[in-house]
């Protein structure tokens, strides 16, 4: 497994102009992982994209934390379904070509 960069939550709060409580709530609902090292709390750099999405959903569409959870679950489902569609399309193409 490659090296995982950690970003201090305080830094994120300043950069994105969000309250630390918002990030902690996202963590409490299981949407992001927080890592504690001594007295500092961090999130993994690879989850920044998701965190930004959550901030935008909250800020731009007024979606609350529970709503964000629902949206993310549905988006995950959509991704899985898209993958399934690709596999099924390829399979259909295979059978159509071999009719």
């Amino acid at each position, binding site marked *: 497994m490659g090296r995982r960069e950690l970003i201090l939550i305080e830094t994120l709060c300043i950069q994105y*102009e969000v309250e630390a409580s918002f990030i902690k709530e996202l963590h409490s609902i299981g949407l992001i992982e927080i890592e504690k090292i001594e007295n500092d709390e961090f999130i993994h750099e690879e989850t920044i994209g998701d965190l*930004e999405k959550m901030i*935008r959903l909250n800020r*731009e*569409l007024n979606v609350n934390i529970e709503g964000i959870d629902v949206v993310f679950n549905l988006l995950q489902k959509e991704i899985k379904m898209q993958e399934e569609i690709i596999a099924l399309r390829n399979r259909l193409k295979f059978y159509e070509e*071999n009719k």
Partner: protein
Amino acid sequence: MDFVDYYKTLGLERTATEKDIKKAYRKLARKYHPDLNPNNKDAEKKFKEINEANEVLSDPEKREKYDKYGKDWMHGEEFEKARQQQSSRSQHQGFSGGASGFSESDFSDFFESMFGGARGSSHQGPVQFKGKDLNADLELNLSDIYKTHRQILTLHGQKIRITIPAGVEHGQEIKIKGKGGKGINGGPNGDLYIKFNVVNDTSFKRDGENLYTTVDLDLYTALLGGTLTVDTFDGKVKLNIKPETANDTKVRLRGKGFPIYKKEGQFGDLIVTYKVKIPTQLSEKEKELFKALQKLR
């Protein structure tokens, strides 16, 4: 450059109140927001249109100007005067950047002409956001993806070296971290999503990790048995043909199919279908012998 009917974009009458505008905008934004419609170009376009409409209609000053000169934007000194007086003091109520990336250049020509492209901002400081995610298509031959290989692509002026794992599917997408649009206000770069279009340049048919092929089998080998050399993806194999092999018989050659994606050293199967070839242009002697055989049955 066409006139843009911002009221129509938001589905409103010209008499709409501020509250109506906000409500219509929020409703449409929830529907077309790029974070809720990943990789949907139509939604992205629509989102930009409603954002622009909101930028104008939610700002009393801009709305007044739009209502007054909107349709006649190309004519009249008054409009030109008004255009020149346009300042960036207006309050921004639209969306910020990020994956929903919305920059000045995303406004229509109509907007740029009328409002000079200036866009106010209510942000107190520069908020850093990840750059826009970019998408690209890459055409690959089936024979190219039998082995993991590296490829150098030139995208948006930058050279990107990517590793294409063996066994990728047609239509599959991979993410190249940090190779998307530049970060906003020093934020991290977006990601690049590459979609593979796999073109079959071989005689094999592929279904996931399994390969299919059809080979001709002469009547005598089918009846009496023997051996047959068959092409696989990585070379030839000799197959033993059982006596009395029927037409369309399938044999499965384990591990001779396509590599399994991200499972190094693992392969699917090759399914070989035998097509028994009936001899044609029989000689008199052959006909006689077949008739003799027929009588025996």
